[in-house]
């Protein structure tokens, strides 16, 4: 059994680790949030740095502001596009800054700098459909106060942010009870089909025009300015001075209309972000860049490799850790409650929260995702190992003792083989769940089948969602099948025989 695990482990490492050797040049990592505009801006930064000869890669569609900020502070990424209002109200809220002029000096404390505004402000806005606006006579956010029965649907991040719903409700004394948190891209579909009536929007969203939405006037001046800027690490000045110059050169280059138009090309016309970004830099910096697209197969292979890497490493680690833990729980009644309790509690931590907890410790990408998956894999394995050993019939257990076999031999020769079916079932459960949960890894830049799903949700592209969902489901089935097959090797024959029918 141990040998098989090792072979499996080695295969996974070979599969996943066979990336091209790194060249000896300066690498620049760009991050972006998981909405179109941010990805385009990230892509622009990538193209600029590649043009200057740096090795640059884009960790796109990371799960949220905190993830990006922590990654930047930990120098897992060097650059990402941010908005001044978000800095003020969300990232640095504990400093209670009042205006943008203080930002630079505060950022210095983190060894981070920002560029001047890129030329547009992407402020939060509250929107309704034109029909709703006319029906209720809504023009200002204050008007909402008169209609407490309206259904509000806000981005999950907006629901919690300092500059989001809690503050908005307090400022405008909004009485609404029916408020839902949902994904930003799904909100537009929700408001279109009428299941929600009021949403938060980014003022540069292409959908505002597309869905014919009306932006309600912020009559009490609640929302700050959200000027788009690049945040970058100070050490970039010495490592890649040309790039810092180029980023600063971006100041004022993108008026709001241009940004909206670029967003529309990606979201409505389904052009890849990279080609929209390439057009932009070609026009503004007189460069000649063609976006590098990746084919379907190459993408699938890349995602499969990343996914197997996440699942394989975390599962093997979980088996090596959880089986002994289950044995200890079964053997020492004093530890039983503690072990099963702790492992159970881990399971209840929401996956995104767990991923975010990991970032300050492990950064972004594979490692935190693997640790999170490892933690989620523990419960089924620990519990089934515990149950398998605990439920060995008393006469069998007693016989093993009575034969005078030492504890270690009893464990290897008798208890583990007898518990093998249960342990294997636990591992199977973990593996199948793990394949599904690993799709969340994309939120923190670990790649895998979650990447096309995430992009597909953002672009409302069912085909793209299926490119992640179908292989993930197929992999889950394959894993299930492999484990069913492995019963043949791991479960002793005497346990697989059926009792002869009683006459």
């Amino acid at each position: 059994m141990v040998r098989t695990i090792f072979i499996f482990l080695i295969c996974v490492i070979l599969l996943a680790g066979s990336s091209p050797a790194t060249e000896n040049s300066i690498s620049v990592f760009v991050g972006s949030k998981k909405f179109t505009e941010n990805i385009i801006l990230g892509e622009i930064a990538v193209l600029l740095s590649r043009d200057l000869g740096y090795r640059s890669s884009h960790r796109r569609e990371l799960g949220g502001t905190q993830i990006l900020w922590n990654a930047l502070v930990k120098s897992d990424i060097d650059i990402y596009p941010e908005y001044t209002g978000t800095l003020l109200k969300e990232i640095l809220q504990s400093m209670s800054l009042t205006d943008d002029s203080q930002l630079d000096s505060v950022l210095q404390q983190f060894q981070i700098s920002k560029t001047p505004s890129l030329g547009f402000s992407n402020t939060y806005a509250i929107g309704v459909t034109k029909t709703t606006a006319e029906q209720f006579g809504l023009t200002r956010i204050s008007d909402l106060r008169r209609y407490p029965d309206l259904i509000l649907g806000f981005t999950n991040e907006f629901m919690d942010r300092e500059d989001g719903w809690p503050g908005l409700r307090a400022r405008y004394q909004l009485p609404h009870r029916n408020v839902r948190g949902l994904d930003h891209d799904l909100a537009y579909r929700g408001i279109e089909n009428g299941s929600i009536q009021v949403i938060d929007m980014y003022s540069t969203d292409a959908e505002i025009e597309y869905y014919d939405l009306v932006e309600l006037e912020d009559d009490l001046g609640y929302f700050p300015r959200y000027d788009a800027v690049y945040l970058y690490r100070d050490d970039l000045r010495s490592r890649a001075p040309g790039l810092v110059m180029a980023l600063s050169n971006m100041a004022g280059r993108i008026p709001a209309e241009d940004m909206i138009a670029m967003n529309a090309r990606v979201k409505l016309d389904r052009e890849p972000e990279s080609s929209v970004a390439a057009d932009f830099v070609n026009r503004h910096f007189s460069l000649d860049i063609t976006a590098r697209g990746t084919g379907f197969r190459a993408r699938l292979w890349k995602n499969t490799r990343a996914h197997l890497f996440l699942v394989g490493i975390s599962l093997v680690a979980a088996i090596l850790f959880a089986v002994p833990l289950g044995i200890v729980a079964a053997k020492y009644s004093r530890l039983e409650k503690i072990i099963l309790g702790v492992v159970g509690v881990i399971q209840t931590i929401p996956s995104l929260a767990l991923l975010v907890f990991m970032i300050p410790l492990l950064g972004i990408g594979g490692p935190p995702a693997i640790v999170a998956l490892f933690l989620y894999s523990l419960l089924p394995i620990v519990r089934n190992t515990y149950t398998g050993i605990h439920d060995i019939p008393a006469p069998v257990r007693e016989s093993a003792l009575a034969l005078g076999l030492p504890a270690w031999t009893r464990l290897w020769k008798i208890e583990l083989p007898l518990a093998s079916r249960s342990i294997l079932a636990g591992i199977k459960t973990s593996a199948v769940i793990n394949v599904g949960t690993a799709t969340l890894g994309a939120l923190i830049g670990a790649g895998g089948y979650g990447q096309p799903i995430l992009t597909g949700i953002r672009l409302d592209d069912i085909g793209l969602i299926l490119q992640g969902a179908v292989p993930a489901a197929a992999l889950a089935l394959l894993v299930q099948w492999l484990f069913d097959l492995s019963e043949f090797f791991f479960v002793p024959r005497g346990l697989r025989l059926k009792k002869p029918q009683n006459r």
Partner: protein
Amino acid sequence: MLKLINISKQYHHEQALRHTSLTVETGHLTVLIGPSGCGKSTMLKIIMGLEHPEEGVIEWENTLAGVSPVLERRRKIGYVIQEGGLFPHLTARKNVTLVAEFLGWKEDKIRDRIQELCDLVQLQPELLNKFPVQLSGGQRQRISLMRALMLDPGLLLLDEPLGALDPMVRADLQQDLKAIFQKLGKTVLLVTHDMGEAAYFADFIVLMRRGKIVQQGGVEDLINNPVDPFVTRFIKAQRNPLDKLMGE
């Protein structure tokens, strides 16, 4: 000689044994009998070191049992329980040879010993390749006995070895067992709740009730000189179908 001196054992709130002492003569067969919960199985478990008494000592081969390591003691005692307790994941042969292999016996020594034991318990050697689920209850008990005898222990403990068998198989096995015990001449301590079985096997019967020994001696002693009305009641509790013909 095996001596249990002043043993007390408590399970949760239940007193299983109360200051009980017992002497088992070497080379004899002693039957422990009594109603359910009288503490007879607990006695065996304490001898095996599977349970630990709160009070009292065990003396065996003139040493205190606590002195020799428990694993060694267990290997010198054969133990057979009601359903056999065979390991379901191992073949019958592997069940029998497990400990000998662990102790590093040579292959031919194991083979010879198996042959001897098959002859002794009258088991067709082909059955050794089967798994426990593929065997009948009687066959399982014969294999369980082989397993207990593999290391040629000086003492054999049997806890209701025939309790789960149907009457015909049971009668056959009783006969075989008696012959085996006579042939081996080992010290045997057998637990049963069946007075007929006890009378069939025993040189010496120990009747227990509520964690104490009520009376010990030959069958005749118990029938003719009961120390307590309970003894008579226990002996008579088993019905004989022939009573019907005799008229009550």
